[in-house]
């Protein structure tokens, strides 16, 4: 007797039957639409002018990472204006796994309904999940998420203004000596004795960077000393606007020192906007001319160490000042004196010695006092919260951490 499964035609017939049964009985067909997403909510985007609506929806039950190949490839978002012609317009798409969307093409005060559909890789579209309530974009008059930051800025600025006015009324203010700034005179004097020039690098950022402005104010004071000593000055700049501003500053310094004739416009010149091109130009000049004093005051990036090490190699006395925390260690390692962060901003007030400028430093101190007090309170309540995780201390710590200090607060 012949066994049926040994017959090749019988086996082929069986395979075709199995394939047909599987194809018909298969729970998912290629052109089957995926399941619809869950409930959709649409709300006005907070803290804006009323030009956006935020959507959130529950993912389609078929949008799961364990389903291979994926049944949902994307979500399609459609919008209908309530007072419009009832047409659903596509406004955006989001890839699978995403359940939020921000519609930024809406008009303030208009009412909108939204629907979200899941789309399969073959293009089959699920049933729509529709918002039940229309959403209306509205304008907020104030960024509430930045309220704490505003309050802190107001407090610090208020303190600065208060101390400026107190200083104007003749109140004497003590400012601790800053070695880096005391060294400016020494450096310029040394350059004069050696008959070499002073190099001043005002950073590589444009004039809209506050560090560049602070650098130029220091340049003004340094240039006054240079004019008094009748030394030579060299200011290569990486931005044309900085060159123009630096020329004005230096000219004013020479004028105030009573030596307007010694001012040479060409001592302040433009090299290039390109970071390493600028470094090549400045370091090349340093090696050739060997300035006796080098000042680096402004915003710096990777070029900080290239400049400072070259200055060190030629034996120049070097004073640096920057508010770029990542570059500070390089300057500290390679320069004789470094103005760290706030010292750099205090430099112009310190060097000028004008009482109302010194008042700003006292205002800064009030800000530091506030920051320190907040940190102290925060550390205390956080420590208590460790022992009482459900207590009031935990919520206070959370509030300080997320609202006052972080995010919208002291460090936005």
């Amino acid at each position: 007797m012949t066994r049926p499964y040994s017959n090749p035609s019988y086996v082929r017939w069986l395979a075709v039957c199995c394939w047909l049964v599987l194809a018909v009985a298969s729970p998912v067909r290629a052109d089957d639409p995926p399941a619809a997403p869950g409930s959709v909510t649409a709300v006005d985007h907070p803290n804006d002018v009323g030009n956006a609506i935020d959507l959130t929806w529950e993912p389609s039950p078929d949008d799961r990472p364990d389903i291979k190949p994926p049944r949902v490839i994307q979500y399609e978002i459609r919008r209908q204006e309530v007072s419009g012609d009832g047409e659903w317009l596509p406004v955006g798409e989001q890839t699978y796994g995403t359940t939020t969307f921000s519609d930024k093409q809406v008009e303030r005060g208009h009412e909108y309904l939204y629907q979200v559909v899941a789309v399969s890789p073959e293009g089959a579209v699920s049933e729509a999940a529709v918002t039940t309530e229309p959403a209306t974009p509205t304008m907020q008059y104030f960024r509430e998420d930045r309220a704490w930051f505003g309050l802190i800025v107001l407090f610090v600025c208020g303190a600065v203004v208060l101390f400026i006015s107190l200083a104007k009324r003749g109140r004497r203010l003590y400012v601790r000596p800053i070695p880096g700034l005391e060294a400016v005179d020494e450096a310029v004097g040394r350059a004069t004795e050696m008959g070499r020039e002073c190099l001043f690098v005002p950073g590589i950022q444009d004039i809209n960077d506050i560090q560049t402005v602070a650098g130029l104010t220091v340049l003004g004071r340094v240039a006054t000393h240079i004019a008094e000593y009748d030394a030579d000055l060299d200011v290569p700049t990486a931005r044309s606007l900085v060159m123009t501003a630096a020329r004005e500053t230096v000219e004013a310094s020479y004028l105030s020192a009573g030596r307007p004739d010694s001012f040479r416009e060409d001592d302040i010149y433009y090299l290039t906007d390109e970071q390493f091109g600028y470094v090549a130009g400045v370091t090349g000049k340093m090696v050739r001319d060997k300035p006796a004093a080098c000042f680096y005051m402004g915003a710096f990036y990777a070029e900080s160490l290239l400049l400072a090490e070259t200055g060190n190699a030629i034996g120049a006395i070097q004073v640096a000042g920057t508010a770029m925390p990542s570059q500070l260690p390089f300057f500290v390692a390679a320069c004789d004196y470094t103005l760290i962060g706030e010292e750099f901003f205090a430099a112009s007030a310190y060097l000028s010695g004008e009482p109302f400028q010194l008042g700003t430093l006292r205002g800064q101190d009030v800000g530091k006092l506030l920051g320190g007090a907040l940190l102290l309170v925060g550390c205390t309540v956080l420590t208590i919260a460790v022992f009482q995780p459900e207590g009031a201390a935990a919520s206070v710590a959370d509030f300080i951490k997320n609202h006052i200090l972080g995010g919208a607060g002291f460090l936005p």
Partner: protein
Amino acid sequence: MKRTVPLIIAATTGFVLIVAYFIPYTETWGETAMAWFNIIAAVAFVLGGFNLMKNQLQKISDRRPGWGYAAVTLISFVITLFVGLAKVGVTPSETYPEYPWAGAYDQEGAAFWWVYEYLFLPLSATMFAMLAFYIASAAFRAFRAKNVEAVILLITAFIVLLGRTYAGVWLTSWVDPLAAQFESPFMSQLITGLRLDRLTGTIMNVFNLAGMRAITIGIALGVASTSLKVLLGVDRSYLGSGDD
């Protein structure tokens, strides 16, 4: 007048940017102010170009030390400017094939692209690569054990450098078995933390971060104070003299 007008412009722009940060309605004002700055900066770029040429020409004509470099700078500047403006080697764009100048000046294969890709980029990369040598020389000087502070710095740097490599983990692999021998959780945790990679994490996330935050807060206050001085006109030294 020479100082008053720029001061008014600076103060107005500064206050507009501050207001724009807090009031959504004025957000576009801040963007407009920045657009104006970009326009001015672009115009000033031409001024910078002329200044560069003038300086280099002067150096060459006076035969000052290093005038050869000035010649190289000048030639490079003129060539780059020419190939960029004349769009040398640029093929017409597919969108507007009838206009030979419609292609992008920096399209692949063009002379400007070639200058950028094969001259400018390698030269920039060379300068950047030199940083590695400078870091080594600066570290050598910074880590010399001259006094107590320098010794602490040296030890800390040694731990951090070693902890960031596999050698650190390998050298202190005995720490975890040793910690397991202690019944007291405090002692066990203390010894576990001595493995170099974990010690590095503690140094970076506790000591280093605390110091950095203090500096950052100081910087933030300095920025606020300096900005206020500029906006209120307390410090006008960056504007030059008032004489016309």
